[in-house]
């Protein structure tokens, strides 16, 4: 067997012998999916949404129709439609949606500070419809203003699970790469395991290629296991034909390579495990928060959106949603594919130059 295959085989076998690693790669994401779906997927008992129509007119009717279409997919949401004014809103408990008659004014979604906990379950579905614009701390703890109707229309019929699953795949690809693979490499270096590699007749690129290959296969396996479980349990409503599977394979493969290459680059020079954990956290939390994975991006400042869209995580998740639910062609997700390719090539290239075997 060639050296490359031997290294890859050893790494793959070792990985599958590590029950801790298997749990965090395959089981934990599924548990996270169940947890988030339980909390925000509408299976948590009925939630009352008071819809205050501040003025009649075609806009209010259209918006209510859209909202009922959208939120109707979330189980257990009860709409209570009534006319109201701004002045009596403070007496309401729970979620209050106010639709002004004036089309130039924005629709507002309000959650009162003493609202029952279950009310918050409707926030995520509502946030799928809308984008967070501003927070009025003086009167409400949490205030959401609805953006243009057109955006709501696009999201019609879109369930939280459908939004969440591609986002979770993206999140697990980057978290496994950073916390699983990157820290593993730095730990090995810190323990002195790579000293031997420096002395063996082994080129760095062969080691990096073998490691990348096995970890790529692991990420690919995870993604499809996760998709299958998610589809069976929650019904993603994607049309899983050969064309879609082909496009998903390409997208997930490129995504896995992108985040792997990033992990390798970070691991290439960092010598202390504590430092790599810190860097991984610094990268992971802002990236997952701002990348439209499980929190809609709409309400973020433009600069945040711009930066987030230059990082491959958000475009990856968006592209996955587009090809799964909207039947997008590869050309439609060319930005995501191009961006990930650039990141992958740059990170691998730098890794080959910078990677060190030893900490000294």
């Amino acid at each position, binding site marked *: 067997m060639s050296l490359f295959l031997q290294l890859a085989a050893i790494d793959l076998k070792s990985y599958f012998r*590590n029950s801790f690693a298997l749990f965090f790669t395959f089981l934990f994401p599924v548990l996270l999916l169940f947890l988030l779906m339980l909390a925000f997927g509408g299976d948590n008992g009925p939630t009352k949404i008071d819809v205050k129509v501040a003025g009649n007119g075609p806009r209010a009717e259209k918006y209510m129709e859209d909202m009922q279409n959208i939120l109707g997919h979330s189980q257990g949401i009860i709409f209570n439609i009534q006319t109201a004014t701004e002045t009596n809103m403070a007496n309401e408990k729970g979620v209050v949606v106010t639709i002004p008659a004036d089309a130039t004014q924005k629709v507002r979604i309000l959650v009162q500070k003493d609202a029952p906990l279950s009310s918050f379950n409707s926030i995520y579905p509502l946030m799928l419809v809308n984008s967070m614009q501003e927070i009025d701390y003086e009167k409400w703890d949490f205030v959401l203003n609805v953006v243009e109707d057109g955006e709501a229309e696009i999201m019609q019929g879109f369930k939280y699970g459908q939004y969440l699953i591609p986002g979770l795949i993206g999140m697990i690809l980057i978290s496994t790469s950073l916390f699983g693979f990157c820290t593993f490499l730095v730990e090995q270096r810190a323990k002195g395991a790579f000293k031997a590699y*420096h002395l063996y007749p082994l080129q760095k690129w062969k080691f990096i290629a073998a490691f990348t290959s096995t970890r790529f296969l692991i990420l690919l396996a995870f993604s499809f296991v996760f998709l299958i479980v998610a589809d069976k349990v929650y019904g993603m409503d994607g049309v899983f034909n050969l064309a879609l599977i082909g496009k998903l394979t390409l997208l997930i493969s490129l995504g896995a390579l992108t985040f792997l290459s990033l992990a390798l680059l970070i691991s290439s020079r960092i010598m202390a495990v504590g430092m790599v954990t810190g860097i991984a956290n610094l990268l992971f939390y802002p990236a997952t928060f701002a990348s439209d994975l499980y929190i809609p991006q709409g309400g973020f400042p433009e600069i945040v959106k711009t930066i987030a869209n230059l990082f491959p995580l958000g475009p990856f998740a968006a592209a996955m949603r587009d090809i799964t639910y909207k039947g997008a062609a590869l050309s439609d997700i060319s930005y995501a594919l191009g961006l990930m390719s650039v990141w992958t090539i740059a990170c691998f290239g730098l890794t080959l130059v910078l990677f060190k075997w030893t900490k000294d």
Partner: protein
Amino acid sequence: MSQQHIIQVKQLALSFEDGTAFSFDNINISRGKITGIIGPNGSGKTTFVEAVLGLKNTSKADITIDGVTQKEFFSSMKNRKNLGSQLQVFAFSEMVKVSEMVSLHKALYGTQSKRIYDDLALAEISSKRLDKLSGGQKQRVSLFMALAHMPKLITLDEPSSALDKTMAEKLIALLKYMVAEQGCSIIIVTHHPYELDICDEVMTIYAGTKAYHETRDDFINQIIGAYHAQIFTGDQNDDPTIETAIDNIAHVKQHFRQNGQIDIFGSAEMEADFLALVKQYGLKSYSFAQTNSADILKISTSYAG
């Protein structure tokens, strides 16, 4: 290019964050010989070897290995195939099985000695994962990875420290065979007399620099003393006149007093005067013998400097 020396260190300097600095100049490791490196803990033995192997950041390094510069040596896969190193810490991924390490070795070097596989008794642990091995078993795997391709240059860092006596004896026999029959050059960092017994040359390192580098015989005869007399002074421990008396013995090279015991090193000619001293002080417990590896190690560690 020196055919006589497998490693030539013209200049090697390392400095550390705590302010300590190691400096090794003009060290030549003989080809086809076993060189033992001894010295107290923390004196720089492992650092020296790892610096030569390119595993340490150095501030100055002018090193030639097998006729080429250190950089050239490690940039060539062919050269690396001629190197076998057992490092102080064997820290391979713990989920790997021994049989997979054996396969990896074969894939790395393309050749593998059945004798070394058998002598290190790897068959009996081949199905075990590294994290399930004892310290001695791990050391056997580490030694296999260093030796099984019969490299021209071998570096070993306390190779038998975790081995049982039988396995240690097998290792010693194996190393002797590799030098005698295969022409290997071996560097051993050691604290063990039976490892030092097979060394052709001895290099002592104190406080980050070379103190002596001689053939083992020269080191014993000229530096330490070919004979070793010991006195166990007991309740006469505090009598300062004994040491004055020892100083007056001809042919004594050095003597040390520690824990109710005086060690005297010198040539064979000191025997008569030594026995007279024993008689003069009425000492009941004493010995007189040829200096051995245990003595060398003791003098190089207990009485360092």
